[in-house]
């Protein structure tokens, strides 16, 4: 009987090799960085602060690109599972490694690692873009804004939280893909889940419902981690919000893992 860690290490190695040698991976990682930084810079350039009390959150503004970058993260994670189903590779994988939850866990680990790296690059570049652009748009000391700095606790939390947000979106997508198997359907469900709650929240006029939708939506809750000003008026505490997203991701992974075990490949 081989110890469990050997098979886990093997599973990780296998998944790493598969993901590393798929042509799309590197492009998707590049897309995560490029899309995030491009939209973050565009957002920083579009938002201006006219005077004191303009009530804008410089961290949110300069990390806005996450909302687009997450689509590439979702695609990367979905393809890690659905790609195998579309080519039939999944049968070989499960024949070689009958512990299906271990396979899913290994995929989750490898995808998380890659997203962590790409996300860190994207977030650092976005913060840098914000640092360079925002002071020119009125985010200056006389309007009550200090320059963005990662030494500042809330800003560091917003930046690190954004990276974790991308990782959790990857895990959520992985779980959804394991549930529905088809790549396009999984992408549709993930993006639908992300975009649904902000839209619904915008049409309900009852403030209680609005808060509730902001609190349970994976995107609106998760991005609460980016807030650095007016923390009291946010629907959620920053880390609490990321926790909600983590619950979504855990739920999707659990459902995916259970279905992998129950279903034929």
């Amino acid at each position: 009987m081989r110890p469990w860690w050997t098979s886990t290490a093997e599973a990780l190695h296998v998944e790493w090799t598969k993901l590393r040698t798929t042509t799309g991976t590197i492009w998707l990682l590049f897309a995560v960085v490029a899309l995030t930084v491009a939209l973050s810079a565009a957002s920083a350039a579009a938002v201006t602060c006219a005077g004191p009390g303009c009530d804008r959150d410089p961290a949110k503004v300069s990390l806005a690109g996450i909302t687009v970058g997450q689509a590439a993260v979702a695609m990367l994670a979905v393809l890690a599972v659905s790609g195998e189903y579309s080519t039939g590779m999944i049968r070989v994988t499960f024949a070689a490694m009958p512990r299906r939850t271990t396979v899913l866990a290994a995929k989750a680990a490898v995808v998380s690692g890659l997203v962590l790296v790409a996300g860190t690059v994207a977030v650092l570049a976005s913060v840098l873009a914000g640092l360079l652009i925002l002071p020119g748009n009125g985010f200056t000391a006389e309007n009550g804004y200090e320059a963005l700095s990662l030494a500042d606790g809330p800003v560091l939390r917003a930046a690190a939280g954004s990276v974790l947000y991308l990782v959790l979106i990857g895990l959520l997508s992985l779980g959804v893909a394991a549930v529905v198997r088809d790549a396009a359907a999984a992408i549709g469900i993930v993006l639908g889940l992300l975009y649904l709650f902000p839209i619904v929240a915008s049409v309900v006029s009852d403030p209680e419902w609005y808060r509730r939708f902001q609190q349970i939506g994976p995107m609106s809750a998760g991005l609460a981690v980016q807030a650095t000003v007016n923390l009291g008026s946010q629907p959620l505490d920053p880390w609490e919000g990321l926790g909600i997203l983590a619950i979504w991701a855990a739920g999707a992974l659990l459902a995916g893992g259970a279905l992998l075990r129950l279903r034929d490949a």
Partner: protein
Amino acid sequence: MTTTTPYRSETRLARDGFAQLLRAEWTKFRTVRGWVIGMVVAALVTVLVGILGPVGSSFSCSGPNGQSCGSHTPPLGPDGEAVTDSLFLVHQPLAGDGSITVRVTSLTGRYLDAPGAPAGRGLQPWSKAGIMFKESTTRGSAYAAVMVTGANGVRMQHNYTGDTAGLPGEVSSTTPRWLRLTRSGDTITGYESADGTKWSVVGTVNLAGLPSTVEAGLFAASPGYTVTTESFGSASGSGGDTLATALFDHADLQGTKPRGTWTGDDIGGQGGGNSPVTGFQQSGDSFTVSGTGDIAPVVASRGSLSKTIENGLVGAFAGLIAIIVVATTFLTSEYRRGLIRTTLAASPRRGRVLAAKAVVIGSAAFVTGLVTAAIAVPIVEKLERDKGLYVFPVSAMTELRVVAGTGALLAVAAILALAVGTVLRRSAGAATVVIVAIVLPYVFAVASVLPSGASQWLLRLTPAAGFAILQSMPEYPQVAAAYTPADGYFPLGPWGGFAVLCGYAALALVLATFVLRRRDV
């Protein structure tokens, strides 16, 4: 020497007309369970999200003076649209034909309920004062008026939506404006003059069905101001009333005057009939008239208690995601299974295969959208009315355009997704690209994630412009409002926005035909 005839097969060629292709593609579509489920999901999700809106909305009718909900309902104009009809009118009846002439020497304004009001003189660009013929003093009745405005010069307006420009420039004692309205049957002509001798026509309008006796008079009105504060992820507005005061002299009413004396009425009075600020003073043929409010169509704004009919279709974006997924896999799954080789062997004219697929998926999406909208719009409208919310009336043609437009939006988006799927051959990539291109800008704009300027540009340049086809309320240049996508206004208007989406779809289809022909299968 023998001559050999080349071999000819006795088997007759299979019919390969476009009708057969359509039938083949339709058979593929309806026999794949996931695609049919996708269409049903699209319809369900759209209706359910639409219903969430009114279910999650509430307001109480206990106003400061115990006002009933009925008072929130705006009057309807002669053409059936919701209007604001609040003004101070100094009037007397005029029987039959006649004319009214006046000189305006000043138009000033100020903010009411001062705390929180911005600094400045308070005259709004569309503060207005002038002369009018009005069917009656009932709110929403027909009228024609010629007026001076705060920043838009002389205008002739009628029946709330009509607006014609006259002389530009502000009015003052050194640059007064002479105004004249004449009635001849149902035809009313507005004139203007800078000196009272040289007159020019501003406009002529026909008010069909105007009673023989109308109210003729002098009026002043000033729309409320709003200050919109936008922050990332939300926007809030604050505002209040403003008051316009105009000085008139040389007032002259020609014609049969059954009463012969002037009375003042605060029509639609926001300040009540005996408001201390609105009112008029007469001294001979000179008048000072102070009024608040506006004479204009009501425009939609987010968070108000008045809802547009397309509010019921806010879930269309979710249905669109399902349709996009189905449409991309409609072709990419053939690549995945290798069926594409059979398809193209059976029908070597590849452009026609793509056309048949586009027709089938487009029609299926159109029908799905049409049925969905025909269900969602009335249901949500009823729920909103039950909640005491007001739903803007629109013409039957507009309602038809919105309902059929939902189908058209889904159809064109499906064709775009099909074409992108053909080019990319991978369903995940194609679905992501199309969803991000169509749905993301819309989400940004409607959930006001971005500042309104940025989101307006997104809705001009991206395929998300197509959502404009759902816009039921027109923009009016004579009403100052934010007109942001979140309020229900798209920068290019319904057809312009839809044309942008169609352009993207056509471009993608041309590219898809090109690569499908050039590539090996």
